């Protein structure tokens, strides 16, 4: 069972901090009327970074969902690339600005394109797992989803495939208890999403998603199991959605402010920061310099993206078919 080195711990922290600052900046841009839409990962960063670092980045495959900014940054998405997506600018790597922001795809990092309809990605991950098994490769595939979306038949059918064929898939559930305004109790009659695994015949684990290292351990174990040929694992991370669902949402109508304030007390970023400081991995100086460096990175990325052109209108007509693909 591997444990992250000091360097890895610092890198995990850096990615979480970068994700947080980029995300906060996106909210500001929205308030300024510079972007039309943002969907936030604030509160989910520890789960995403813990999971990503537990896998072999560059080799393993990922089928994420819209909250996974921190995961994508861990996989190599650059701040500029994210910013281009926010603004719908040319060169945005996931879709050439065809999709809404945070609809991820990054071929160079084995990150598969996902759509908006929730749950559709789950069978894709099982299909990738089936292909890995058929080819005798040693990669694993991780797919993430919110707890509400596990109500979809697509999720059930996708997980069932992996369980039957013991495919190398990790089903990561980021459970923030809300699906927009609908609470978990209205989505399922079980107390934890992990319990759903027992009905599908695969191991299910619930882990504190505010604790990056706890998630790192559980996902490392799931990856080992998958590589051993022992099949898939359902990993439920309990996280907090510290923002409204998206920039289109106003959550005051359905959740009390006190609840949100209480959650903020358990902010996964500061928790990880405290922990690294206590274990002397992170000094206050280092932390300050990281903040500064990241502040600059974010500012530069936004500036460059604002300066970037929109796609030419001519780009909109392709590629409908593979025959129409144009590079560059």
């Amino acid at each position, binding site marked *: 069972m591997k444990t992250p080195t000091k360097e890895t711990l610092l890198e995990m922290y850096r990615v979480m901090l970068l994700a947080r600052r980029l995300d906060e900046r996106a909210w500001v841009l929205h308030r300024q009327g510079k972007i039309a839409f943002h969907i936030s990962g604030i509160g989910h960063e520890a789960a995403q970074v813990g999971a990503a670092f537990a896998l072999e980045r560059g080799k393993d495959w990922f089928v994420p969902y819209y909250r996974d900014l921190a995961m994508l940054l861990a996989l190599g998405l650059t701040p500029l690339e994210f910013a281009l997506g926010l603004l719908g600018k040319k060169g945005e790597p996931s879709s050439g600005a065809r999709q*809404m922001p945070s609809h991820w795809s990054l071929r160079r990092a084995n990150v598969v394109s996902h759509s908006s309809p929730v749950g559709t990605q789950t069978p894709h991950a099982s299909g990738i797992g089936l292909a890995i098994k058929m080819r005798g490769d040693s990669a694993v595939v991780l797919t993430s989803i919110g707890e509400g979306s596990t109500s*979809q038949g697509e999720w059930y059918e996708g997980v069932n495939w992996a369980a039957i064929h013991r495919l190398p898939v990790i089903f990561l559930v980021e459970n923030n208890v809300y699906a927009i305004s609908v609470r978990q109790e209205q989505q399922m009659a079980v107390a934890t999403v992990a319990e759903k695994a027992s009905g599908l015949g695969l191991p299910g684990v619930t882990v504190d998603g505010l604790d990056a290292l706890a998630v790192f351990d559980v996902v490392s174990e799931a990856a080992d199991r998958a590589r051993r040929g022992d099949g898939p694992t359902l990993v439920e991370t309990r996280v907090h959605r510290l923002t409204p669902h998206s920039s289109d949402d106003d959550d005051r109508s359905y959740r009390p402010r006190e609840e949100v304030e209480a959650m903020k007390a358990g902010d996964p970023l500061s928790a990880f920061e405290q922990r690294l400081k206590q274990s002397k991995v992170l000094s206050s100086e280092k932390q300050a310099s990281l903040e500064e460096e990241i502040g600059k990175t974010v500012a530069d990325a936004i500036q460059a993206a604002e300066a970037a052109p929109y*796609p030419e209108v001519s780009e909109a007509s392709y590629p409908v078919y593979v025959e129409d693909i144009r590079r560059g």
Partner: protein
Amino acid sequence: MAEITLIEGLRQAMDEELARDDRVFIVGEDVGPRGGVFRATQGLFEKYGSGRIIDSPLAELSIIGVGIGAALYGLRPICEIQFADFIHPAFNQIVNEAAKMCYRSNGEWTVPMVIRAPYGGGIGGGLYHSQSLEAFFAHVPGLKVVVPSTPREAKGLLKAAVRDPNPVLVFEPKKGYRLIKGEVPEGEEILEPLGVARVSRVGTDLTAIAYGMMHHYTLQAADALAQEGISVEVIDLRTLLPLDKATVLGSVGKTGKALIIYEDNLTGGYGGEIAAILADEAFTDLDAPVRRLGGPDVPAMPYSHPLQDWFLPNPVKIAGAMRELAAF
């Protein structure tokens, strides 16, 4: 007479029908305390309670499938699909079940239900929050398909749909939810008959046939052409299935020229059926080719706004097509 928005017309329709008939209830994602993501059900949860305004799990096929069951028992469900783009998981329940129930049981079982789905582009929704799907469902005998374009019709058609004993799919032009305002008399009961089109502008040189947002753009284009001395008759179809053929054939019989405008992909779009009917039943009346102005044949509407604008028909494009046809 109060001026209200299109979405307020929908809200009033549901409020009045809920009050009139205790068999009527609403089910969908976030329709409860949140009042719907577009606020179409705002205030109804507070007024009618959790027993009749039901926040569903995040699972469209079961929203429809459960609605069908309740309708079979004798209730009158109004099912909200949050965006038309997410109706696909329910395709089987709508097309194979709801639409075929009456015929397959020789009338022993019927499905009095309404399905509401916001559709259409121009709101920065990208591929999966902009779709127009009427062509799929207007091809399904057993369904009725309605598209209101004004607040009065939104209210009157939705109320009529709730009272209709068949499954009725109401596609709501979401771009017009707050943009389109109109006078709706208070106090009196507003009911608009299903299956009846409306000549919204009288003209002599050509007939322009549209629905939803495109109907408003078509009226604007017709105004522009009036300046040039070209007289356009405009038809708002209002119901796509069953189609009001008499009104369409009557108008084209008079003008001899027809242009059909829709924002869905051109190929296989709903306008094709109208053109086919005209090519057969109005052949001897036609003085010019039957023209269609639709969206381009790319998989869906791209996000980046220059690309979105490229996709969408607008008054300028429509006026251009009218000019060309008038000059034929």
